[in-house]
């Protein structure tokens, strides 16, 4: 069982034009920086990207948008990105906006072998258009389908050679959900450790969900909104 790849270029090299890929992260937090850079370099096109956000103009998925590699974004929030806006308005880019919790749960559903889920999010709004609704115990729910993605690309803090993953802080976000949901799941980690290093009680994503893993490098981990408080005076 060899899941360890040497680098991002090898891990993503079979991703073909027209693929549907999930990319972990919330904003710029916990995004698979190495794989995004490799996809940009590789020039894979016509991608459908499922990711909560679309990056900023010069980082994250924004880098793929700059190269016009993305055909469609499925996201909950796509602000902070001028090139995204330009492509959307010019009709080059298609976007499907999905409530954040629905996005997360549709990933989980795929990983848990559930074909669809019921959620109240979006009932009575334009998100509900064309969707089946159903009343349970007096409350209205939408039927939302599990995602079907060719690849899930996630970023973890630590991972081992068997693909077990541990995330750090809020960089966890969508990563474990997408890791479960991809037909092929590619994980980049800040620290790749030998099997047996991670505490089995503290693994967030069991290795069964991960097909490829590699030690990432040169993480920039850009901060989108640097907010600080003043040191209290003595």
């Amino acid at each position, binding site marked *: 069982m060899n899941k360890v790849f040497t680098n991002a270029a090898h891990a993503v090299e079979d991703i073909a034009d027209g693929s549907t890929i999930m990319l972990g992260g919330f904003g710029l937090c916990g995004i698979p920086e190495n794989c995004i850079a490799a996809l940009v370099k590789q020039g894979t096109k016509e991608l459908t990207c499922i990711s909560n956000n679309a990056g900023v103009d010069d980082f994250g998925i924004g880098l793929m948008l700059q190269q016009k590699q993305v055909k469609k974004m499925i996201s*909950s929030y796509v602000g902070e990105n001028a090139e995204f806006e330009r492509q959307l308005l010019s009709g080059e880019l298609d976007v499907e*906006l999905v409530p954040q919790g629905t996005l997360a749960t549709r990933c989980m559903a795929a990983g848990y072998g559930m074909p669809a889920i019921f959620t109240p999010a979006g009932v009575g709004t334009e998100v509900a258009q064309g969707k089946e609704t159903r009343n349970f115990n007096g409350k209205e729910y939408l039927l939302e389908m599990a995602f079907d993605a060719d690849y899930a690309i996630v970023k973890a803090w630590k991972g081992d050679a068997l693909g077990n993953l541990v995330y750090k802080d809020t960089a*966890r976000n969508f990563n474990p959900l997408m890791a479960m949901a991809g037909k092929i799941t590619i994980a980049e980690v800040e620290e790749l450790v030998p099997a047996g290093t991670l505490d089995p009680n503290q693994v967030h994503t069991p290795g069964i969900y991960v097909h490829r893993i590699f030690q990432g490098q040169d993480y920039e981990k850009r901060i989108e909104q640097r907010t600080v408080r003043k040191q209290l005076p003595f």
Partner: protein
Amino acid sequence: MALDKYQIAQRIAQELQDGFYVNLGIGIPTLVANYIPANLDVILQSENGLLGMGPFPLEGEEDADLINAGKQTITTLPGSAFFDSAMSFGMIRSGKVDLTVLGAMEVSENGDIANWKIPGKMVKGMGGAMDLVASAKNIIVAMMHTNPKGESKLLSSCTLPLTGKRCVKKIVTELAVLEIVNGAFKLLERAPGVSVDEIREKTAGKLIVETGIPEMQF
């Protein structure tokens, strides 16, 4: 006199109860955190995956892996817990979050809320707002009573695309505290020095005013 945004946040903070788990939206709602009474244990939930959100970090202590739903750098507190986004919205959907405070562009007299989309303008997305309004037990809207053109944001029905239907329970503006009751805005409190007439004039939807509306207390 009309409240400023800090006072709106301060008034909303009076709605907190000991042991509440609270989700605060972006903008004025975020400011509520500054006014939590010291004698109350209130735990803030950030829907990107954190319970027990602390204040902004000290300069030099920012961590790119530790942000809130507004993508701002934050800190944790003793007893915090991280989780994935499915569990985060799971706890929201199952009603474990006691109070959600969020901003709005429009609220209707039956509690509909619109806060995510303006036709003709670039749509940035609903983020977690639709999940929050569809699920929260108790939703307070923090907003200005009127829009920049001076038009009422408290309407008989929303003109903008909805975020959720029949979900808002209470509204705190710079002028008033109002509750949604039987398809109307029921006036509960006035801002200090603000007249019922001014509130009436700036409320387009059905307004219920009983006698002796008290001023807000701070």
